[in-house]
């Protein structure tokens, strides 16, 4: 039972973060809060992948020692999720920048970031 918990708790914690982010995106009426919720969701996905790359007793994926020693696969963490999440972090920064630009443009036009106010203003 406790072993099960130890094997799963990182995934459960990322699930909690994902639900918090989804609540920010669905339950809030302020567009800035929706953006913050989206960022939390992205962070949760990144943490999920990084948690999946862990190996028991392994170290960071940087080869130590000389050229010609035999390399033990189990001694290094899985490098592939690290690569994918490195690009995902930068893409999330770019997405956040574009979203903030949209928010500033909308605020200049409608004078508010509250969804009901903007919808009422558009009609």
């Amino acid at each position, binding site marked *: 039972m406790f072993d099960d918990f130890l094997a799963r708790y990182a995934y459960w914690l990322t699930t909690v973060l994902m639900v918090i982010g989804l609540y920010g995106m669905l339950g809030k009426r302020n567009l800035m809060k929706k953006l913050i919720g989206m960022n939390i969701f992205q962070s949760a996905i990144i943490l999920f992948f990084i948690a999946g790359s862990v190996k028991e007793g392994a170290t*960071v994926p*940087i080869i130590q020692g000389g050229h010609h020693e035999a390399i033990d696969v189990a001694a290094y963490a899985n490098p592939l999720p690290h690569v994918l999440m*490195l*690009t995902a972090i*930068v893409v999330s920064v*770019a997405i956040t*920048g574009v979203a*903030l*630009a949209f928010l*500033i443009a909308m605020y200049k036009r409608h004078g508010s970031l509250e969804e009901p106010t903007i919808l009422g203003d558009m009609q």
Partner: protein
Amino acid sequence: MIDRYDSLIVTFTTRLLVPFIQIFALYVIAHGHFSPGGGFQGGAILAASGLLVRISLGQPVVRWFTHSRMRWLGAAGLLIFAGTGIVPLFFGSAYLDYSGLPIPFLSGAALRATGILIVEIGIAMAVLGILLTIFDHLSGWDR
């Protein structure tokens, strides 16, 4: 509009820290083969140093990381990356196959490591330029 923040402590600390931040960023880019680091991380640290100067010292102090240069720097970084991919096409290799780069005295694995270094520099330039461009437009610095 973000203007300079008038405080002796902030000004002095920024002037003291920014050169070290930039040197560390260049180290992170250049040493990305052997330690945690690379183009994205180094470019982000360089952009952080630029942001520190912008929000603490103000516009007149920004010497090289000016607003109008940053978008060209981003484009140049992307061109370095794509150009490094295209050059091997003329020497009989596939796109982005760095072992076909025409660099003398290098071959095989060493040539691929050199290609990785060139590409990382391009990525760092692109990240630095684009992050500062986004910040300048969001904060209204371009006006």
